[in-house]
């Protein structure tokens, strides 16, 4: 199976099954594909995709605020056996209740407290040991805050990465939004984040949302702001190995995916 070469930055995208033919025809443009869902049983293109691209396991494996079930761990291991991902990704999120009766069905950050830090660290170690590969964790933005946090997002993440040795998957639209709603520049927001732990970057677009009355994550091309931020981070992230255009949706077009990867490569001087 192909692998991401050492010492060279890979620029890739998420696997969108409805665009499989275009991805396969894209030549050397796409360096890797991240897998948000397992391949469907009737996805005839997937064997070719797996032969052609290094794959990154980026499925929902479970929320690490809680212990993963034996079933969830076994599923994670099976996915990793299929993809042989150089690292496995999960998120700093807690979106469903402990009794599973209520879920937000969307990324949502935990409270930044000592208790949650311990929970994430313990459960991340078990997941990492189960899949037998490095684990990277992705930052998740909040839209409101409770008067309960014991530390900042940056401190929570920094301590997590120091304690566990996991890698950092830095999602830049998430940072951009967190900074935007904090009323500061993204570079300023990032000043206490452990950029030296960054292994992978996510880039994508943002657009206005009617309910939030402000910008939010969108499956659109990354604007120059985000690409500039990516370069700024890359200069401070010696372990960075991959940049991924983070969008998967049945409505996504090949033009958007390929154009976004091209723009990202251009920003990094790789075209």
């Amino acid at each position: 199976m192909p692998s991401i070469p050492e010492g060279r930055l890979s620029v890739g995208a998420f696997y969108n099954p409805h665009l499989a033919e275009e991805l396969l025809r894209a030549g050397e443009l796409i360096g890797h594909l991240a897998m948000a869902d397992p391949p469907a049983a009737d996805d005839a293109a997937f064997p070719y995709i797996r032969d052609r691209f290094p794959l990154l396991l980026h499925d929902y494996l479970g929320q690490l605020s809680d212990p993963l079930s034996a079933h969830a761990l076994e599923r994670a291991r099976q996915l990793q056996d299929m993809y042989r991902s150089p690292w496995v990704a999960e998120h700093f999120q807690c979106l469903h209740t402990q009794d599973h009766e209520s879920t937000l069905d969307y990324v949502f950050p935990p409270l930044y407290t000592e208790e949650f830090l311990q929970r994430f660290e313990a459960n991340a170690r078990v997941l990492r040991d189960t899949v037998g590969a490095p684990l990277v964790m992705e930052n998740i933005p909040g839209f409101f805050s409770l008067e309960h946090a014991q530390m900042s997002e940056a401190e929570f993440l920094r301590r997590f990465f120091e304690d566990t040795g996991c890698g950092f998957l830095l999602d830049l639209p998430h940072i951009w939004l967190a900074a935007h709603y904090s009323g500061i520049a993204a570079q300023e927001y990032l000043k206490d984040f452990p950029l030296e732990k960054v292994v992978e970057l996510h880039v994508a677009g943002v657009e206005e949302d009617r309910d939030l009355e402000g910008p939010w994550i969108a499956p659109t091309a990354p604007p120059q702001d985000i690409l500039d931020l990516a370069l700024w981070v890359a200069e401070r992230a010696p372990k960075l190995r991959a940049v991924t255009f983070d969008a998967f949706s049945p409505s996504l077009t090949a033009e958007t995916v390929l154009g976004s990867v091209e723009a990202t490569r251009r920003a990094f001087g790789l075209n």
Partner: protein
Amino acid sequence: MRSVPTMPKPASSKSDRDLQDKVIRYLADARARNKSSTELPLSPEQARRAEKFGRFLARRYYRDRLARSFRYSRLFASVIGRTAEQVVDGESFQSFLNECVMGSLEAAQRVGQMAGTHLSDVQEPGAWWGELLAYEQAFFLQAAAAETEPAADTPRRRRSAVCRAFRWNLPEILTRLKSAQNIGDDLKKDVLLLFSRTSGGKIYVVELQGSSELVWQHADGFRRVDQIASAVSLPAQTVQDTLQALSQIGAVVLPPK
């Protein structure tokens, strides 16, 4: 063979994790957010932001499920000028957002009804159009209703499961729509379809025939297996096996063993 390690035990009962659960329920339940006060440590400004986020989550949730469930009628969007997911941007959805419990059966029924009505009021692409919409509405109910089913003392149909008789062969119609083939009167055929969803979220649409239909209809939560067997004149083992199969696809809830 490698063994799966045991995850660490959760922390004490009253914890930050419990508070997070309260936040999740608050965001998912518009009625909780409408109350004049909350026990959550939210300032008035942050409560306003949480309200916006709750509405954002619900609109996104139903848009996503409508797009996935009404994908065959969507093939006619350019002809009829409408798609199911347009309802989440309509005026009536605004008032729905003021009171919905995201993932509840009642909310799924309301949104499914909105979509069905929205797509019915058009020049029908074919005589089978109404049946296609009924199929997609039943599918949507499985995709959008994520309530946990209470345990049962006797076999009981899952509340969100739907059994519906069609006068057209819907499975074959879907196959033809996917491959852009014409649909003719040769596809007029009575079929009985059962729509269900497992607790893990997997959706099934299966054709019910013969004894399976009888057992399904009699799994009303009041009869034990032997009483169902007696009512449908089938061996108890046959009924037990059928109920087990229906349970595996999330159509019935069985008493714990």
